[in-house]
Structure formats: C-alpha cells, structure tokens
C-alpha cells in the first residue's frame, strides 16, 4: 500500500498536527492515501481519533518508529 501524499509534521505541537492532517485530507480525492508522520505525543492519540471522527479511515494500524508515529489514512 503506497501513499499518494506524505505529510511530515514532526516537530509540530498540538493543534497543528490535527489541523494540517484534516486540511490536507479535505483537499484530496476520495480513496487516496495520506501518510502522516508525527512525533508530538499528544498527536499519537488525537490525530487518529479526529481523523476517524471526521469520516476517514485508517488504512492500517498506526506504526511506531522510535519516537515517531506513522499513520496511513484513506481520504
């Protein structure tokens, strides 16, 4: 499964990871895949939860890579 776009928001603190992710998803076409890389611990939780609440799905389980978290989200 390869992503159409990648959003690298490491270093950004809340609420910017959620804002950037939802904003980017909004501009993508349905079914496209977005990879999001975050390292803000609050974003480990609020990015996936807000994405799902806004009607998108996680294309696979969040993946932890050291202190980063990688999400693959279907627009």
């Amino acid at each position, binding site marked *: 499964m*390869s992503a*159409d776009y*990648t959003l690298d*928001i490491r270093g950004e*603190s809340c609420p*910017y990871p959620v804002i950037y992710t939802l904003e980017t998803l909004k501009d993508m076409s349905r079914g496209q895949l977005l990879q999001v890389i975050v390292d803000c611990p609050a974003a480990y939780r609020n990015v996936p939860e807000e994405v799902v609440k806004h009607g998108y799905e996680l294309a696979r389980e969040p993946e932890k890579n050291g202190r980063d978290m990688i999400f693959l989200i279907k627009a």
Partner: protein
Amino acid sequence: MSGFYKKWVLSYWSPYMAMALAGILSAAYFGITKTVWAVTGEFTRLGGHILELFGTDISDWSYYQLIGMKGTTWTRTDGWIVWGMFAGALIMILLNNNFKIRVPRQKRRWVQGFAGGIVAGFGARLALGCNLAAFFTGVPQFSLHSWIFMLATGIGTYAGAKLISARWWKGKPLLTKGSVTPLRARSRKVQPVVGIVAAVAYGALIVYFFVTGHRMLGVAALFGALFGILIERGQICFTSAFRDLWISGRATMTKAILVGMAISSVATLIVIETYGLDPVTKMAAPSTFVGGLLFGVGIVMAAGCETGMMYRLMEGQIVFLPVFVGNIVGATALAYAWDHMGVYDALVASGAKINLLTEIGPGFALFATLFVLAAAFAVAVYMQKNYRFGEGLGRPDFKKGGMKRVR
C-alpha cells in the same frame, strides 16, 4: 516484564482516570497543606527572584507582598509543586524512552510561543491563578472567581482559535508527493536506565525532607511528582479542553477535566467539612474576567498553558522553552503593573472575595457546582457530535464525501 509495569508505566492512561485521580489528590493536598495545587504564583516569585538578582528592590511591590516572597523556591511548598511536576513528568518520559528534542520546522513558532507565554502569564496572574488555582482547584474551593475565569477563558480561547487558524499564523506543513520511508529508528535503551536512577534519586530526596523534619516540603515534592506523572501519562491539556472544541469539536479533554473537577468538588467539600478548614477564596473582580480573556488567547497562541507546557518541555518539545520564559515575563510584568500602573485600582479594587459555601451554604454550593459542570459537559458532548473541522456547527449530518468534494 510484569503486566503491572506495562499497564501503569509503559502505557498512556485514560485522561478520565488521570483527572479523577488528580481531583482526589488535589483535595488531599489541600487537606494536608491548606494550600491548593497551583503553579503560576511560583512563576511570579521566580520572576521576582530574577529581578532581585539584577539588583531591583521589589520589597515595596504590593503584588509580591500579596503572594509572599519568603525563602527561596527550594524552601517553599509552592516551589516543590512546580519542580516535582517537572521531575515526575520527566521520569515517566524517560522510563518510556520517549524523550526527543522536537524542533518545530517553522521559525514563527518560537515567536508565537514567547508572545503567547507572555499574554497567558500576564492574564493568569491578573486573575490570581491559572487553569489550576482559578479553575481546576478553584471551582472545588467554591470560589466564585473561578466561574468568571472559566467563562472568560472559554471566550478567549475562541478568539485564539480564530487567530491561529489564520494562514499567516499557522503556516504550511511539509507535504510531499508519494510515500516516504522513514529511517528505521535505532532502539537504544539508555533513557529508561536514566529514568530509574532519577526516580530513585527523587524518592530519596522526598525521604530526606521527611527525616530532616521538612514534612511539608516532602509532601509538596511528592504531590508535585504525582501531579506531573498524572498530567504526562494522561496527556492532560487544559488548552486543548477549550481550544479543540472550536477547531474540530474534540471534547475528550474537556469532558475528562469536568469529571475531575466534579470529583474534586465532592472530595474537597468532604475535606473542608471534616477538618473545619476555610476554603481558599480569591477576589472576584473585573480583573478576573479580563485576566481570563487574556489567558484564553495566550494559551492558544502558545499552544499550551502553564501546566501543559511543563511536561511538553520535558518531552523535549523545546518550543515550550520560550513559552516558559514568556510565562515568567508576563507574570512579572503583571506584578509590576499591579500597583505601578494602576491595575489594582482600575480592575481589582472594586471586587470582593465571594465563596459559594458561605453565600448559599454547602448543600446548594455543591449542587450549583455540579449542575454547572454537568451543563458544561452537555455542551462539550454537543460540540463533539456536531462541530466539524472547517465546517463549524452548520451541518450536523456532515459525512465524508459531502459537498466538500465538489471541486
């Protein structure tokens, strides 16, 4: 590794449980020390000590007379609450191997953090407390000023959320086409070892306080660390509790904090009645409202309040360093403006210390408090269900693939 360690040290906790525990602990802390869990008063004193270091005579500043400057930060319970929170949070982060210098890619975040820190520090002290003393521990003390502060902070964060959503403020993220395979992180396990050493050292310090007769410092150092552990493990963010309602209708923190306050209100009332203590009541005045507004705007600009900033900084989110410095600068500026610029006469003098317990009696006071908290909870649930990012409240039945896909 034992299941207990995995569950309580290596996992994040439910914010509801973290806040419920914080509510009970803060009531217990009040029962033992007769002071409340608070941080910004100490920030203001730190600012005072820095001024003294540069030769400024602050002995006649009435704000410092009001909050008291006795001793140093190491000999005050309020001081050890602050350092304990830093220590407790840092220990948990190290045990989880999760410390990392996290540097924002956009330079503007440094300026935003510093500016927000100043505004929040100034506003919090104008209202005589931040989201702790004027909110999380203020409401359970039945001090009316905390209700005014809570309302004003809500309005302030709304304005703040509008500000940070502006293009020039939020900036652009790094978006690339295609997939990126990040480098596999090496798994080095130095941090947990450092964490264990730090935990043992800090535990020894608490024991030292007790055996040398500094019981209250020991209590503060212990409770400070516990509060630090709770807010870090629960990722408690008072800023998010308000702000995220206006951004994406996220209400997890809002609800968790309200539950914590309800529990703390009951626990605190029990402590007050059992031990015959006087509740901590602060002045309710125009300054409370203005301070709350500024605080609300400031914490959203800084992306963290005086409490959340502490564990974020320990996680290595160094953008919170200018926030911390800003908090102290803002708090100290307020201490100066208090009498030197007529803030007290203009905004505070007309106020009064009003406590619901003495005004309407314990039964009604508790009922009124729980009723307002429940109403706030209902609003949070409504926002969570109906408020959507970029859409607002307009279309409650908004679903994926709606009108937004037209272009």
